[in-house]
């Protein structure tokens, strides 16, 4: 009985895969024909099935870009980058979309040891760091076997030294994964969707605007209070914004 269940499940999974790829292809076909609005709809409905990939987000963002919709384009490029942080094409098209946005915000580079460490850990996702750690663990076992079974003293020494080195790398990659996940969980990036929205110094509608943001600008949510979100800009400015004006990426 169990076997039958498994077979059915397997069939369903393969069906779904076989069904998703054509949906992706039809959306691509619409895009190729220049019907960007319909293509965007098709990608959105594909995402609604609970499946995602960096490519779908990328293509969807392209479809929005072609319709000159800045905020949804930037939002989906950023989504794609979350899944695939090193893709050059996504970064390239994102910079195109960012040229359409109205706000220009100077990024203040923060320096220091933490930033330097971040430069290294940022290279891959923390799940990849975890996989690297598993790889080092396996390598450690292989080196141990070499050490244990070889007869020559020279080889024994080499294998033992390798073991110590691999153990160090293993610990470092686990630390990198922990560090990177900590940052990932503390960051709450969001994209401004309102065409123009005032950022207040207090979470109240009756306060004067501290500054005004336009659609497509990326902000970081720092705090929440009822329907208000405290945001921080890359240049360090902070303020309160209505939660309807922005959409969070995570």
């Amino acid at each position, binding site marked *: 009985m169990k076997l039958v269940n498994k077979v059915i499940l397997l069939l369903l999974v393969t069906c779904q*895969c076989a069904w*998703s*790829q054509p949906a*992706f*292809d039809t959306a*691509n076909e619409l*895009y*190729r024909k220049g019907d960007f609005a319909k293509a965007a709809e098709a990608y959105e409905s594909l*995402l609604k099935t*609970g*499946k*995602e*990939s960096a*490519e*779908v987000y*990328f*293509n969807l963002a*392209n*479809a929005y*870009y072609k319709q*000159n919709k*800045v905020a949804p384009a930037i939002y989906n490029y950023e989504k794609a980058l979350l899944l695939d942080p090193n893709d050059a*094409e996504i970064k*390239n*098209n994102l910079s*195109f979309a960012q*040229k*359409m*946005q*109205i*706000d*220009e915000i100077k990024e203040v580079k923060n320096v220091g040891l933490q930033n330097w460490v971040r430069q290294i850990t940022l290279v891959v996702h*923390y*799940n990849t*760091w*975890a*996989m690297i*750690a*598993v790889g080092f*663990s*396996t390598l*450690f*076992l292989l080196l*141990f*076997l070499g050490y*244990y079974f070889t007869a020559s003293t020279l080889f024994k020494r080499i294998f033992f030294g390798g073991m110590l080195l691999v153990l160090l790398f293993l610990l470092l990659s686990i630390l990198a*994964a922990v560090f990177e*996940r900590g940052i990932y969980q503390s960051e709450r990036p969001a994209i401004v969707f309102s*065409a*123009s929205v005032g950022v207040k110094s207090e979470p109240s509608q009756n306060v004067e605007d501290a500054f005004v943001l*336009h659609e497509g600008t990326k902000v970081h949510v720092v705090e929440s209070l009822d329907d208000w979100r405290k945001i921080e800009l890359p240049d360090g400015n902070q303020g309160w914004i209505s939660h309807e004006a922005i959409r969070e990426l995570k």
Partner: protein
Amino acid sequence: MKKYILIFLLSFQSILAQVQFEARTSRPSLGVNETLRVDFVMNADGDNFTPPSFEGFRVVGGPSQQVSQSWVNGKSSFNKVYSYFLMPMQRGTLTIRQATIEINGQIYKTNPVRITVTAAVEKQRDPDDLTPTADESVHLVAEISKTSPFINEPITVVYKLYCGFDIGISNWQELDKPKYNDFWSQNIEVPQKISEGEYKGERYRYIILKKVVLYPQKAGRLEIEPLSLDLAVEIPSGRRDFFGRAQIKQENKRVSAGAKTINVKPLPESGRPDNFSGAVGKFDFTVTPSKTNIKHGESLDLVVSVSGTGNLKLFDLPKPVVPTALEMYDPVHNENVRTPLSGMTGRVSDTYTIVPGFKGNFTIQPMSFTYFDPSAGRYKTLTSKEIVLRVIDGPGLAQNQSAASGVQKQQVQASEQFQFIKLKTELKSANRKDFFGSTSFYTLLLLPMLAIPAVVLIRRKKHAADSDIMGNRARRSDRLARKYLSEAKRQFANKEMFYVALEKALHNFLKAKLHIETSEMSKERIREILLEKNAEPQTVDSFLKLAEDCEFARYAPSSTGAIQHDYDKAAAIISSLEKQL
């Protein structure tokens, strides 16, 4: 004592006898169209009276003298007055300077008097005065188009001077120019032309003196100050001269259009959009770029213009919002507005110069302009269309040199271009679990670590087993027996089959060990070969005996115990033969 009182009384008398000379005015403040009487009063007769110059006034009467002397109870009192009637020439605070007189050889002066002159006041007509005057035939009227406008809704004030047919006006002078506080005002030049019209049911000649368009800037009750004129009027006196011609009397007359109060309504608060910048009227709003397809380095002009009727000069035009990739310079403001009596009409525009910095399509957001339509009584919003600019060239783009030159090889430059969509994908579930921190992660991480002690343990055991030689041998023969006798063991229940299998097993053993064919198998031959291979004769005997028994036992009745016994025996023989060979 009496002496002192006398001296005191005498000194008192001397005070009473002191000369007094002072200026008295009939009122401290007056309107610019009213008259003032000034009296210079003295209580002793004097000579050489000098009146002041009366700067800012015109003397319309006087000087007149009045002297009175009376004796009461033997005491004489004397009083002499010089009177002047004055008319102010301008508004403000005027000073009547000192007058001087010489009394008993000494010069006395009056104190200067300050007079406040206010705007023209409306005069009450004296109902008892029946004499016909210029008042009845000359009228200055201010006509106001609307008395309750909205803020910034234009109203017009037209000043008309009506004049009866029987009198003439030879000259006029504006005394008091009205100030339109809280209004934005525009004077309209009018040709001075005499026309005929009716005023209060009578026919008059009239002249339009002045036209003003006013835009109220404040809500509430606002007052328009009256205009005052000083007219030189020629009135027929009713008498005729020697030749029978009508005698004409010259007279100066002041007229003023009464002050008017205007009730300005504030713009409604309800439904006021955020981007309302104070425009009131009827407008048209356009945003036009000079071109939408441009090359890099070229510029374009974006014209934001509002045209129509209303307070065109009194509001700000909306500013366009452009992406950072476009560089926008400060606008050039342009006004083309005429002001007829109906209010400002024309067109105001801001021209922005935009220079694109990058290749691509850029959107200029739709702009909206809100104004208040006083005739509809509500706010209206006009929104421009979204403008998409196509910048054809851009920095970093490969230069399309013609390949016609042929000789030079063209280097293909990777240009910064908008990338096409991706065609392949691998979909994953959106809410999948993180690998880091999952059970499988920990398992995979720790499994190699746990494998290390396992490897050590296995190797130790192997060493121990390798060192135990006797046990090893035994184990090996056991294994052999198992190998050959496994079939026989399975047939334990069936006696006949068991012995067939057992016999076959023995044959197989010999085949494997001695490399002989089944056809060669005879007892003698087996014994010969086995002995040749150094097997003990005793074991060879028991082997052959067992083979013989197998054939025999197949047909003879035997018990399960015998089967077990034969099986064990076969195992023992095979293993001992194995050792010996």
